[in-house]
């Protein structure tokens, strides 16, 4: 008989229109096609033409439709009417809301601008928000980098003028061995997944170094289940092996790094350990051809890694000598570190040998001629197909800065940075630390700050201290406690403001920062600080303004809520002035634009700031006649110029929109971006796209497109001189002196060559022997996923994963509950067994746990009843040491929050009704979501 199948329409109408914009579910910033039906969002997919994601899209991006329609969206400005934390608000009009904000802020600006602390959390518009803060005049501005990743960024930039994630990527097309360090694999996620897919297809080897075998480590060919916090030691042991075997790229080290630069040997004097420089400040090397002291960049110079320089009875030796002496020491032998790292010595050697084999035996050449900064012409580019990458895990430790430095040192010793097959920078990187601004804190009441807030310090003279030596910034960034805190310390703002140390503030103004929940360590403590009152019955932190698109936990703890739009209802620029979307082969930036109009009375945060800025007459936000300068953020993006011809967007500049990088304002710029798919790409020509820090064709191209104003070639800093300058101060040299209690720590930790030190004792590891970590699931972004009806089905609650050994030791089985205790607090949570886990490590998914009443969830939602945060166990300060002082739980160099240093102990507990600690519900300002969803748009 014949089959009679139903006739189906295999070519149904897909959408009325596709609007191309940029995702906002994480820091990837992928291009998305938003399919519209009847003016509504019907379907979201990746944009195939987009440089970041080339069509692919992760779960978060694909669930965007549930994000823009989430019931937790705030609807109207809110004024607090109950006590802080109660969630009692009244809806007000925008005019009133902006008037309240201006009434609070204007006196602050007129009298003492430092009394405003303006911190933006998951801000993707930092070049704009910092511009606003600068015009306001407060020194107290930063985003969340100090909490998140400053070690990663700062170590990379100080060492080699760039870092991982948005700053660079492995050469996926050529690499044959890819080594990935660190837990919490959330940054740059789609590009990394695409890259891993690509190299696996070619059969390249992937080595994962991570206490937890999930995600990328699950597909890694080799998994190294390292003990948390010991990555630096493992790396230094591999450096030990490679040095001992002479498996180093000596040519690369001599030509492109400061390994041959002479170090002044002048014990006890103020210049001891600084780099030897000529009268122009150029680092000096011995030229192997002439044997003479020569500036490093002199044409034809052959810097000598071996030669020493004798003067006045002192022998001055090159950096490389110091490295040999330091790393050949037996303390870095694999046998000496194996137990501590939890990796057998034999395996350390095997991995080091494999790195050497692939880097040197599988070296190859690309037929690209290029000219280096000394004028030497090369007809080929040597490739070393070993590449490294790292996730946040190695950086969120008190030794994170030096660990990240160690990793960069390893890849530089192998000669695999900016070479074919190795690690490559993405524009605007490479860019040395010296080309970045320094921090500015010069304030004048009623006037703008004297320069950008954040930057890179190069010695004690750059610290942000007042004349009396006290911190100029509320977060104590750029002080002796953390001299190189390039991203600020958002996580210290509330506790410092509460303590009035270094001073009291009047207004706390925050954006997208869930400080009363998952974005703070010591959540309970922060809640108390936000709600505590002084003897007059006033809140200790007097006024809190908060902007967010959603009913997050922080809303309840604020006095004035300025509701933001969702990502599809707004303008944004992903700018070369900020953290752009470039690829190793191209400069690129992108926009967001309102593909739908808000159906609520909300304003994009940046547009609101344009209005508020004008209302307060901030220079930069008003015209000469005092009228509002930028109608909204879109207007700012098009018309603002940072330097003549350089604006937030690099594409379609000039009157005709045909100029890239530099060019006059183009009123049609946004339309042209939209026409082009929401982004702009300018490719780096072949031959310019490797060896970029030293490649003059690249340098000229970068100047041309506006990344630099003049060519800026530089040497990689294996030896970071600014660290030594802080050490010298601690040794008693110079005018600016650290307080005595910090001298020893500065001397010990701020080594100009990477070192490793343990923070176990500080965290009472003897009593709390287990490390507790968090990871962000690939399908969730911070808190946002919980309001997403689709994503919260994937991760509605989070168990604590225990290794088999700890499960057995504590007679636990899946579904049991355990009490987890740290020196700071305790939680009681459900546990699950995981075998592929370092045996002294436990972990959970981050930010799944929710406060009852937040995010428009019902109060019995599993996020609130079974979900939990590890944050309750972590304090912003270390446990008391008995010296009468409280030390910050952070990296002593950068101030990065050391939340992966968390030490705990585990014991079986009777199952409570709900995970502990429990919190009383807060009243939802938006009610709860609908019960069932049958989502379909159009017919």
């Amino acid at each position, binding site marked *: 008989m014949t089959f009679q199948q139903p006739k189906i329409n295999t070519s149904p109408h897909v959408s009325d229109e596709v609007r191309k914009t940029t995702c906002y579910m994480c820091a990837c910033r992928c291009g998305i096609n938003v399919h519209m039906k009847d003016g509504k969002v019907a379907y979201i997919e990746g944009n195939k033409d987009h440089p970041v994601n080339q069509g692919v899209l992760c779960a978060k991006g694909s669930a965007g439709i549930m994000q823009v329609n989430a019931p937790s969206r705030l609807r109207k400005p809110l004024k607090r009417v109950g006590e802080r934390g109660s969630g009692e608000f009244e809806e007000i009009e925008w005019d009133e809301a902006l008037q309240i904000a201006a009434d609070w802020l204007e006196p602050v600006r007129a009298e003492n601008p430092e009394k405003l602390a303006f911190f933006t959390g998951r801000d993707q518009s930092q070049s704009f928000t910092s511009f606003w803060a600068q015009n306001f005049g407060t020194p107290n501005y930063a985003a969340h980098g100090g909490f998140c990743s400053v070690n990663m960024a700062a170590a990379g930039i100080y060492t080699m003028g760039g870092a991982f994630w948005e700053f660079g990527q492995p050469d996926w097309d050529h690499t044959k061995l890819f080594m990935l360090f660190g837990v919490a694999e959330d940054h740059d996620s789609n590009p990394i997944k695409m890259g891993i897919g690509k190299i696996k297809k070619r059969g390249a080897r992937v080595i994962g170094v991570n206490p937890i075998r999930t995600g990328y480590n699950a597909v890694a060919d080799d998994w190294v289940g390292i003990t948390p916090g010991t990555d630096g030691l493992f790396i230094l042991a591999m450096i030990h092996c490679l040095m*001992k075997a002479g498996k180093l790229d000596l040519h690369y080290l001599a030509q492109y790094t400061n390994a041959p630069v002479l170090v002044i040997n002048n014990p006890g004097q103020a210049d001891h350990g600084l780099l030897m420089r000529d009268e122009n400040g150029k680092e000096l090397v011995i030229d192997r051809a002439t044997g003479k002291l020569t500036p490093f960049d002199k044409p034809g110079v052959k810097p000598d890694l071996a030669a020493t320089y004798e003067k006045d009875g002192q022998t001055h030796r090159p950096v490389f000598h110091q490295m040999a002496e330091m790393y050949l020491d037996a303390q870095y032998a694999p046998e000496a570190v194996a137990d501590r790292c939890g990796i057998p010595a034999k395996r350390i050697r095997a991995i080091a040998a494999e790195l050497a084999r692939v880097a040197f035996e599988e070296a190859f050449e690309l037929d690209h001629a290029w000219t280096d900064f000394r004028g030497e012409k090369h007809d080929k580019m040597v490739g070393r197909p070993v590449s490294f990458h790292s996730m946040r895990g190695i950086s969120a430790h008190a030794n994170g800065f030096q660990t990240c430095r160690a990793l960069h040192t390893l890849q530089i010793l192998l000669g695999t940075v900016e070479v074919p097959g190795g690690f490559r920078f993405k524009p605007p990187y490479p860019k040395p630390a010296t080309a970045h601004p320094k921090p500015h804190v010069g304030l004048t009441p009623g006037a703008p700050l004297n320069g950008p807030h954040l930057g890179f310090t190069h010695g004690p003279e750059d610290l942000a201290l007042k004349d009396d030596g006290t911190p100029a910034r509320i977060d104590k960034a750029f002080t002796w406690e953390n001299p190189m805190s390039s991203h600020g310390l958002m996580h210290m703002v509330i506790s410092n403001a509460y303590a009035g140390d270094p001073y009291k503030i009047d207004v706390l103004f925050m954006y997208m920062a869930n400080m009363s929940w998952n974005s703070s360590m010591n959540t309970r403590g922060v809640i108390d600080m936000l709600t505590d009152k002084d003897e007059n019955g006033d809140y200790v932190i007097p006024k809190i303004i908060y902007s967010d698109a959603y009913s997050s936990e922080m809303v309840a703890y604020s006095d004035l809520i300025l509701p933001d739009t969702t990502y599809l209802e707004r303008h944004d620029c992903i700018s070369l002035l900020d953290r752009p979307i470039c690829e190793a082969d191209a400069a690129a930036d992108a926009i967001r634009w309102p593909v739908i109009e808000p159906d609520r009375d909300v304003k994009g945060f940046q547009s609101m700031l344009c209005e508020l800025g004008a209302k307060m007459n901030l220079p930069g936000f008003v015209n000469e006649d005092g009228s509002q300068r930028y109608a909204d953020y879109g207007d700012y993006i098009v018309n603002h110029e940072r330097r003549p011809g350089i604006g937030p967007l690099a594409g379609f500049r000039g009157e005709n929109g045909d100029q890239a990088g530099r060019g006059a304002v183009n009123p049609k710029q946004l339309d042209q971006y939209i026409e082009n798919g929401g982004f702009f790409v300018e490719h780096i020509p072949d031959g310019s796209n490797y060896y970029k820090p030293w490649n003059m064709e690249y340098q000229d191209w970068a100047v041309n497109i506006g990344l630099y104003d003049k060519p800026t070639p530089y040497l990689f800093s294996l030896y970071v001189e600014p660290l030594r300058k802080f050490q010298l101060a601690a040794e008693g040299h110079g005018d600016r002196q650290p307080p005595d209690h910090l001298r020893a720590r500065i001397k010990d930790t701020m080594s100009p060559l990477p070192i490793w030190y343990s923070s176990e004792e500080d965290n009472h590891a003897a009593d709390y022997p287990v490390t507790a970590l968090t990871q962000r699931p690939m399908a969730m972004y911070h808190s946002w996923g919980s309001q997403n009806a689709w994503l919260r089905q994937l991760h509605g609650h989070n168990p604590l994963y225990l290794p088999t050994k700890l499960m057995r030791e504590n007679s636990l089985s899946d579904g049991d509950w355990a009490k987890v205790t740290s020196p700071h607090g305790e939680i009681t949570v459900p546990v699950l067994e995981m075998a592929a886990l370092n045996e002294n490590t436990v972990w959970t998914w981050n930010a799944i746990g929710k406060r009852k009443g937040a995010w428009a969830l019902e109060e019995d939602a599993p996020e609130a009843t079974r979900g939990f945060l590890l944050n309750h166990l972590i304090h912003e300060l270390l446990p008391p040491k008995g010296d009468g002082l409280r030390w910050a739980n952070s990296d002593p160099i950068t101030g990065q929050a050391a939340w992966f240093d968390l030490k705990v102990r585990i014991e079986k507990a009777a199952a409570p009704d709900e995970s502990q600690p429990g919190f009383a519900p807060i009243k939802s300002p938006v009610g709860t979501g609908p019960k069932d969803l*049958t989502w379909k748009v159009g017919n």
Partner: protein
Amino acid sequence: MTTLPAKTEKKLGLVIDLDTCVGCHACVISCKGWNTENYGAPLSDQNAYGADNSGTFLNRVHSYEVQPAGDAAAQLIHFPKSCLHCEDAPCVTVCPTGASYKRVEDGIVLVNESNCIGCGLCAWACPYGARELDQAEGVMKKCTLCVDRIYNENLPEEDRQPACVRTCPAGARHFGDLGDENSSVSKLVAERGGMDLMPEQGTKPVNKYLPPRPKDDMPEFDVLAPFLEPVAEEPKGFLGWLDKTLEKL
């Protein structure tokens, strides 16, 4: 039609690479999005913002820990699973209404929702958990292999592939004709030893899984030892070696 066609012109299906899947759930949500908006009733969600929330999904990603014998480290394998579009699809023959059928032209197993009475028997008959009864619509939902994408003339040619394949960031999902031994997917299956799930059930699945490559098998140090042959034991010796080597450069 409830009886299975004796032969289909093509055997369209997926090849899923377990060596590459990082478990990101991108395919799960992309599928949910496309199929909520397209073929048949939307994929509904119950208690969407409350306790006991659940919904209809046509593709779910499991994960397994596998403990090799000896002291080798345990492995974690992410495991996406959707309809395998079996050649001998038991879900089709049990259907009392003819709502479930296997297409003659490409072998896709589909549910004609207007004929489905929601008896659930096809889901009972499927060993893979590929069918879910939508709680709002009362009909059986399953992977359509995006039959409304792969031939859709309203989509650019390059987009005529299942939503899950198009979105997969790691490239762990491949789509094609497994009946054509010269197709790229068939070659991939041959090359990598693609396998059937539950072969003993006799369903002859069209979708294949590429097994994970061997893990943690870096050569023993002895093989690699020559690459770490010491040039010196002490810094002094090292500097001597350095000088000699630089001379040669």
